[in-house]
């Protein structure tokens, strides 16, 4: 296959789910109109959501979800061995996601609280890149199908994948939203990487940064701004850790 003089490679892909809500996998099947075109660019050899066929000859492994059990570690390592390219799909895989909230509590107290019986064996939540090397991260809770389509196309064409460097605020302004900060509320859009079309703000919720930090983060200034608005540091930090995706921005603070 060829596209305008460029060789086009149909990639063998596998999708694996770890600890997550499986929302990202559902996104893959979203955008029905484009689905046949999407599926013609990749050959899916392993995907629990759509087929019971399971083959191990995949080139790309998409990993959804974080790691929270010991057995998952071996499974991941096995995938890494087989795949040429490992892609973390979604905020859970890239950062730990909402699951990582449990790391704020001791494992025992947490398990006792959640499960009355059949207590599972569990470990602190880890993102995929803490266990194996990851070639590409596509954050988002859930991932943006449009972005996923773009990335698959780039992989098939062997083109450089461009990541947006600007923050969510740009998309928020394109959608003509009134800024949460001007309303006196908290929002992390100014330090979060764009690409979701500011979907939360459009829907009336602030951005909690599920897509991770943008290429230019000025955390000290944003924190001062939010404190000036009367938001407590405690609340700021609590909201900041919602997806475990913005933790790195506070590193320079100390």
């Amino acid at each position, binding site marked *: 296959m060829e596209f305008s003089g460029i060789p086009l490679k149909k990639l063998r892909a596998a999708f694996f789910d770890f600890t997550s809500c499986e929302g990202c996998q559902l996104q893959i099947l979203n955008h029905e109109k484009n689905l046949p075109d999407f599926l013609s660019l990749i050959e899916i050899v392993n995907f629990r959501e759509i087929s019971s066929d399971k083959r191990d000859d995949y080139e790309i492994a998409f990993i959804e979800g974080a790691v929270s059990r010991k057995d998952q570690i071996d499974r991941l390592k096995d995938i890494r061995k087989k795949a040429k390219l490992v892609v973390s799909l979604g905020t859970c895989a890239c950062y730990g996601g909402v699951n990582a909230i449990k790391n704020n509590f001791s494992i025992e107290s947490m398990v006792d609280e959640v499960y009355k019986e059949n207590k599972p064996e569990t470990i602190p939540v880890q993102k995929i890149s803490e266990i194996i090397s990851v070639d590409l991260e596509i954050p988002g809770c859930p991932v943006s199908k449009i972005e996923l389509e773009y990335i698959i196309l780039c992989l098939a064409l062997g083109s450089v994948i461009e990541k947006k460097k600007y923050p969510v605020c740009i998309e*928020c302004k394109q959608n003509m939203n009134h800024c949460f900060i001007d309303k006196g509320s908290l929002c992390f859009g*100014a330090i979060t990487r764009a690409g979701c079309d500011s979907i939360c703000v459009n829907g009336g919720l602030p951005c909690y940064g599920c897509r991770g930090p943008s290429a*230019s983060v000025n955390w000290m200034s944003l924190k001062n701004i939010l404190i000036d608005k009367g938001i407590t540091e405690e609340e700021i930090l609590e909201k900041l850790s919602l997806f475990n995706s913005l933790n790195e921005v506070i590193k320079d603070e100390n």
Partner: protein
Amino acid sequence: MLFKTITKENLRTFITNIIKENQTFAPVVVSTDADNNPIYQFKKVDSFEEIKINYTKSYSSIKNFFLPYKEDLSTFHFNENGWEQKINYRVNPRVLFGVRACDINALIKLDQVLMKGSFPHPYYIARRKNTFIIGLDHEPMADCFCQSLDTNEVVHGFDIFLTDIGPKYFMLINSSKAFNLLKNITIEEVKEEDRENYIKEKNRLASLFKSHVDVTGMANLMDIEFESSVWQKWGDKCLSCGSCAMVCPTCYCYTVCEKINLSLKTASKEKMLYSCNLIDFAEVAGGHNFRPKSSDRLKYRYYHQHRGFVESFDESKCVGCNRCQKACPADINPVEVLRDLRKENIK
């Protein structure tokens, strides 16, 4: 230009009829800020009653009617022999009602760049010439500083401009299109007392400005103060989020992004308004960034407003609407930045 008056009742009929036959955009309330002030935007309206005629200013400027945030410059259609490029400039006529003087003056500045001089921009011209503009005078808000930039009065760039003089509006008619439309309704000749009331109202409005900044010699000051610590001070606050440029009525710069449709049959070349505050504005291949620090980028935004634009057109690019501060999460106020540069804030 013709000068007439129109009664408030007749204006209502006039606008109502315009709305019936044309896509019409006017200020409506969309939100409220922390101090409980309403936030306005230009939205499509279906009746005169929806319009907030006494609005203050729109949160975003009207520039996106002329420079959409995103716009296809062209599309490519692939075939066996290669591809074919298609460009489409078609725009349906529309009406903007209630536009402020500063916003009309902002359009005139955009006209300089995009309509006059080298490489006129057909996309902009198609939109500009298909937009019927009815302007409206208003009392300045406490933070408006358009008077300092000489943009609180309009002389051209609109079709009709209205000033409230009590029972009626004093009306400037600036296009034959406007003149023809007004044939549909009764308008009156300007009487002695109308002129008096108009001048009185104009003087009253002019006296209400509270925010001022001296911009004389600003272009040279920008060069002289290029290494000033003022840039560091404000750059430290700046989040490099680009909101200021998105809402600014005269910021026009852009980025271009091409996307191949998943079907592999077409691709689009999309223009997207950008901001020089964004980190990769001046970044080139290999990662070299000509403006790596947020202070470099913030400085550059002021430099374009008050130095670069002056070099090309002998006037500042800023019209003093202060939207950039309202939209800025860090509350960066252009008046304060310029005063700092003038060393007026040092006690």
